[in-house]
């Protein structure tokens, strides 16, 4: 069976064909989930943001002109919604839960592997640094792609990355010393 391109599926979805849209969701779920979960942790809010990302995409599908790929378009929506969610959390003064419920990563007595420890510190970074680290280091987008997705200059990506790295180093050193 010939696999339909994203553009074909978008065109069919415009007419209200939910089957075509479902295929698009299935195709891009993994990338969106990677970004959203890295930004928000594996939380129920991450799932809500994931759903909202695709609903927003459906609502604005007529505005999608194909200048960028579907993947870039949905990741942009996901990043913006994740940043909004982080702001909302801050307003509510909620503590960020970086990992699955049940993991007590904050406790110094609990054994955590390096990745969990680093992820915890990434989750404590300011949102703009977290977004760059998520896309560039966790999801493996190139520096240029990261700049495009966040709509910031290439130089800003590099400087944020460098500053984030320094912040992480300081935080992780403290962690290890504890």
């Amino acid at each position, binding site marked *: 069976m010939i696999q339909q391109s994203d553009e074909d599926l978008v065109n069919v979805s415009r*007419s*209200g064909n939910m089957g075509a849209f479902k295929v698009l*969701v*299935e195709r891009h779920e993994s990338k969106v989930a990677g970004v959203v979960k890295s930004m928000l942790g594996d939380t129920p809010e991450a799932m809500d943001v*994931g759903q909202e990302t695709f609903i927003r995409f459906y609502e604005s599908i007529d505005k999608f002109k194909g200048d960028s790929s579907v993947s870039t378009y949905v990741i942009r929506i996901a990043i913006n919604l994740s940043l909004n969610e982080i702001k909302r959390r801050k307003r509510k003064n909620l503590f960020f839960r970086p990992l699955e419920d049940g993991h007590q990563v904050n406790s110094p007595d609990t054994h955590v592997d390096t990745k969990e420890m680093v992820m915890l510190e990434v989750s404590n970074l300011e949102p703009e640094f977290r977004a760059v680290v998520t896309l560039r280091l966790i999801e493996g987008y*190139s*520096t240029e792609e990261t700049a495009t997705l966040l709509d910031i200059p290439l130089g800003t990506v590099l400087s944020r990355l460098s500053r984030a*790295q320094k912040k992480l*180093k300081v935080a992780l050193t403290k962690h290890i010393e504890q």
Partner: protein
Amino acid sequence: MKTEKAEDLFIRSLDESLSTTENELLKNSLDADPLLKEQFQEFIALRETLKSKQPASFGPYFAQKVVNKIQEAGKEIDRQIIFFFKRYQLAAVGVVIALLALNIMYAETFSIPSILGVEEATTTTTDDIITFDYSELLTEDL
């Protein structure tokens, strides 16, 4: 080589493969600057630690859940209606133009209201209308 150039080369080396000369340049500058070398090694280590290795997911039936939410909100019906009318919009515009042309052809005057059928096209003004004089009838009877 300047640190900035070495940093540029390093960043590029993460995104694309460098030429042999560029690789040599990068290696030499890293060897010459232990601090920079350490920084770069930390960056690579950090990237390796954080790199997502498994495809992420929102759990089973995620796509179906999204579709259900859209359908519950009736958004796909709105889209189907719009799409239905979009298909016939050119034909509809053609019919409207044809009706206007017919109106123009049969209108006695060429005012915009008469073309649009807002008021009856007539040359008779209200002053020309002669009102019936009932008093005359009354005098004749007497």
